[in-house]
Structures are given as C-alpha cells and as structure tokens.
C-alpha cells in the first residue's frame, strides 16, 4: 500500500476520502482554491496545497497545478473523487507518467466510457440492452432528422461528452428537434470543447437504477447490488436509496438478476477495474443501459451502509495492486438506507442560492450519518455545485429509514442561505414516495408545497 494520498477534489467527498485514508494510516494532502482555504477538508488534511483562484479551470480542473502539487508533496497516489478530473483519462495518464498511482480505472478503460456514443456501442456489443438511439454521433441536423425518423418521438438529444444533465434536451417533433439539436451542440461546444451529439428514445416515466461494480487489476469483478436514484431535478439526483423499492422483499428477481449480470458484462467490455457504476433506465419491466461511470458515485454511502462494503477503502487497496478478496456470494443487503442531497438552493424553484452558513447544525442519532463539506460560519460560493452535505439515514426496513429521515430532516438546522431541507421533508411525507412508486419525473408531480 502507498503511504500518502493527494485528494484532487473539494467539499464533502474530499473530506470523506481523507477520513478513510487517514484511518488506513495514509498521509493525506488536500488541494484547494482560494474559495475553500478555510474549508473543513483543508483543515483536516495532514498537508494542504493552494491550487489557484476559485474558478474550476484555474483550480480543481487544472491538471498541471494538480500534478505539481502531487510532486511537491511527494504524494504516492491521487484520489480524484467524483466530478472535476475524476473521469479525465489525460489526468490519469499524467499521474502515471509522473510515477503517481491514480485511484481509478485504467486510462484506456476511462477513455472507452467517456464518449457516451462509443460506450453505448461497446455495451450493445457485449449483449447489454441499450436505449434505442442513433448508434453513434449524428454529424448534422440532416443526420439527426433521419435518425429521429427511425427511433421515433419523443427523443432526447445528448452531448457525447456530457454528464450531470448538462447538454441534454427533449424533442417531441421535427421542429423541436432542430431547436434542441442547435442548443445541445452549442452547449456541448462551450462546456466540453466539442459539439458531437447523439439521440436516444425518451421514456416518459422511467426509473433510474444503477449497479455498483468493484473489480481488481487481476480480473476479479463483482457487483455490490443496486441503488435507486429516480428522484431528480434537472437530470441531477436529489434522493437515492439502497435497495430499490422495485426489488424489496424479493420482488422482480429476474429483472434484478438481468440488470446485475448486464452490469458485469458491460464492466468487462470496458476492461474495468476499481469502483464504477453502471446506470440503467427501467421502463415497463425492461432495463436499458445508459452509461458507465468510471468513478466513485456521490451516492456510494447507501451501498456501504447496507452491504458493509467499504467502497473507498477498496478503491485504495485495489489501486495499490491488492486482490479483491470479497466474493460475490458474500454480498448481501442488510437493512435500507436513504441519502438526501442537501443543496444550497431554493426548495421550490430549485434555483442556486450561494451565501453564508450562519447556522449549520446537522442532526445526530441512531442510523444517521452526515457527510458535510462545510461547517458553521463557512461561505458557499457560486463556483461549484450546490451540495452542502449528504444526509444518509439507515434502518432495518425502508419504513424505519423513512421515519428516521423525517425526524433527522426536521432537526437539520441551516440558516443564512436557502436550502432544500423543506423539499426533502415533503418527499419523505409524500404518499407515492412512501409506497415506492418512483420515476425520474417524480418531482414534477409530487412533493409540491
């Protein structure tokens, strides 16, 4: 095992990785922008290096500054967290060239997943059902129109280099397709530096369910069951849970088996090692591959809490060349866990709300875990995503986890900026949520004030 780890991220995930790594005896090195100089993840690290000014391109996305920081501090490994450079194959290669271990999949595997059109073709080739679509990028509006005729409306226009809901638009007709195509290509160019887009069938009310994968560099691969992430706004997750209500009490066993087997097949096709996630849409009892994420997911704690598998710990051990000693048959779900993403945003219109955290008091109690990126007195800036903290609540059953969540949310005291705790309270009290009747448009019809 390496002895030192640079964490190329910020906020709650940088803090969480640091905590796990220090418990394993590693020296941790934080990197930070000027906006985060006083953040908990910086203070708790053994060492901290300033990257630059607040904008991500000058700090957390600055590959040169990150590699320099790793060399200066003699870091033997780098954990990229999620977002920022976590799915950047160039960064992974730069680490390797500098003699630093990159905690993640091999760069060539990352490159295969990054281009979503290519990833789709690979998954399809491995026998994994994919959402009907354009099979590769469409070169121009003419190509898009032709593909749309074949797939049928409504459909989704997506940027091939995109993610997190950026560069996506729904089109219900040919005229709408023209508008969506231009908007998407434009956004893709400015955000990702290329304007390649592809098309996919749009399902009006699907569930979003994903399968956690863990593999080592010797070719051992297993899945750590599923997570349901259907509750989203603007294609970004808001509440996640493990397991999915669709499979509670042994329901739909064939669907779950099919999905987990498909996830393993996809991971093999990508030549995957380390922790990753295969995302699916479920509609009318069928599942369809969307993408594979070459990194730790934001929502990994619900898997950790219900299976006892320490995902970050395994990421570090696998990256250092250790063998995955877990066996598939040892992976069992015990209890239920919910994760609520506490965002600095208006709880009704979901508009960003940066500002000061005059009061920030997370709840404590049985079954409650809080992964927070900020502390009371901190300031939330507009430069990064709005995630303040993750409230993760577990219980013996889903009902118990929901009851505990209601109580924990009521006791979460945040003042100084708008936050979505009131939204989460409406969700846990919503009848459809309690019944597990979820789809990705849930928030458009439920939990309204």
């Amino acid at each position, binding site marked *: 095992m390496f002895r030192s780890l640079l964490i190329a991220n910020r906020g709650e995930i940088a803090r969480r990785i640091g905590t796990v790594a220090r418990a394993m005896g590693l020296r941790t090195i934080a990197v930070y922008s000027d906006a985060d100089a006083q953040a908990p993840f910086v203070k708790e690290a053994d060492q901290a290096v300033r990257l630059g000014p607040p904008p991500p391109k000058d700090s957390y996305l600055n590959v040169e500054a990150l590699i320099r920081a790793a060399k200066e501090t003699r870091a033997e490994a780098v954990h990229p967290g999620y977002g920022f450079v976590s799915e950047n194959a160039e960064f992974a290669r730069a680490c390797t060239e500098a003699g630093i271990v990159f905690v993640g999949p091999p760069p060539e595997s990352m490159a295969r997943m990054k281009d979503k059109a290519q990833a789709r073709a690979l998954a399809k080739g491995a026998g994994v059902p994919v959402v009907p679509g354009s099979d590769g990028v469409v070169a121009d509006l003419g190509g898009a129109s032709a593909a749309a005729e074949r797939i049928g409306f409504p459909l989704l226009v997506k940027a091939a280099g995109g993610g*997190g809901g*950026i560069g996506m638009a729904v089109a219900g007709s040919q005229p709408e397709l023209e508008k969506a195509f231009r908007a998407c290509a434009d956004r893709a160019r400015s955000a990702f530096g290329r304007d390649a887009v592809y098309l996919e069938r749009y399902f009006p009310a699907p569930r979003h369910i994903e399968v956690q994968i863990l593999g080592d560099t010797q070719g051992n691969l297993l899945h750590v069951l599923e997570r349901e992430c259907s509750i989203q706004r603007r294609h970004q997750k808001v509440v996640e849970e493990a397991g999915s209500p669709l499979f509670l009490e042994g329901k739909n066993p064939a669907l779950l088996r099919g999905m987990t087997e498909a996830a393993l097949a996809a991971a093999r096709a990508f030549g995957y090692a380390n922790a990753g996630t295969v995302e699916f849409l479920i509609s009318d009892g069928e599942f369809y591959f969307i993408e594979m994420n070459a990194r730790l997911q934001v929502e990994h704690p619900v898997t950790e809490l219900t299976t006892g598998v320490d995902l970050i710990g395994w990421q570090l051990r696998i990256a250092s060349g250790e063998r995955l000693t877990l066996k598939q048959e040892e992976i069992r779900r015990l209890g239920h866990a919910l994760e609520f993403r506490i965002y*600095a945003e208006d709880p009704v219109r979901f*508009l*960003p709300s940066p*500002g000061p955290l005059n009061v920030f008091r997370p709840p404590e109690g049985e079954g409650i875990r809080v992964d927070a990126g900020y502390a009371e007195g901190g300031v939330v800036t*507009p*430069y990064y995503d709005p995630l303040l903290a993750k409230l993760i609540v577990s219980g013996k059953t889903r009902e118990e986890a929901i009851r505990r969540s209601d109580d924990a949310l009521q006791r979460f005291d945040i003042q100084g900026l708008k936050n979505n705790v009131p939204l989460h309270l409406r969700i846990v009290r919503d009848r459809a949520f309690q019944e597990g009747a979820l789809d990705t448009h849930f928030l458009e019809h439920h939990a309204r004030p």
Partner: protein
Amino acid sequence: MDVPAHITGTVWKVEVSVGQKVAAGDVLVILESMKMEMPIEAPEPGTVKEIRCQPSQPVNEGDVLVVLTP
C-alpha cells in the same frame, strides 16, 4: 427598464448588443451558478439601451445586467 440578475453567479454569455430590438421572453444574458446555466429573459419588448455586464464577470442577485427602453 432595468433587468436584474435573479441569482448570484457569473456571466456566461451576453446574447444581445446595444441597439438591438428584443421581444418579451428573448434571452438577454445567460448566467452560470453552481454548475447551472440560467437565462435572463426580457420581461417585455424593447430596445437594448445599455449592457452592464460582460462574460465571466461575477454578479450578485439584484445587480442590473441590461437596461431596456420600450
């Protein structure tokens, strides 16, 4: 009339120029905050009299971005 920013963030794009005629609902400026882009639209038709922001400039909620004349 003054068109203000409705969120705190940075200016991503200015979509209009001085002297340009706009209809209600036309996008004047696109702001970016917390990894989200938010269009600022013309509340009513008019002509762009003044542009008080430029790309990558930080703005606060309530700051006037564009001035329109009817």
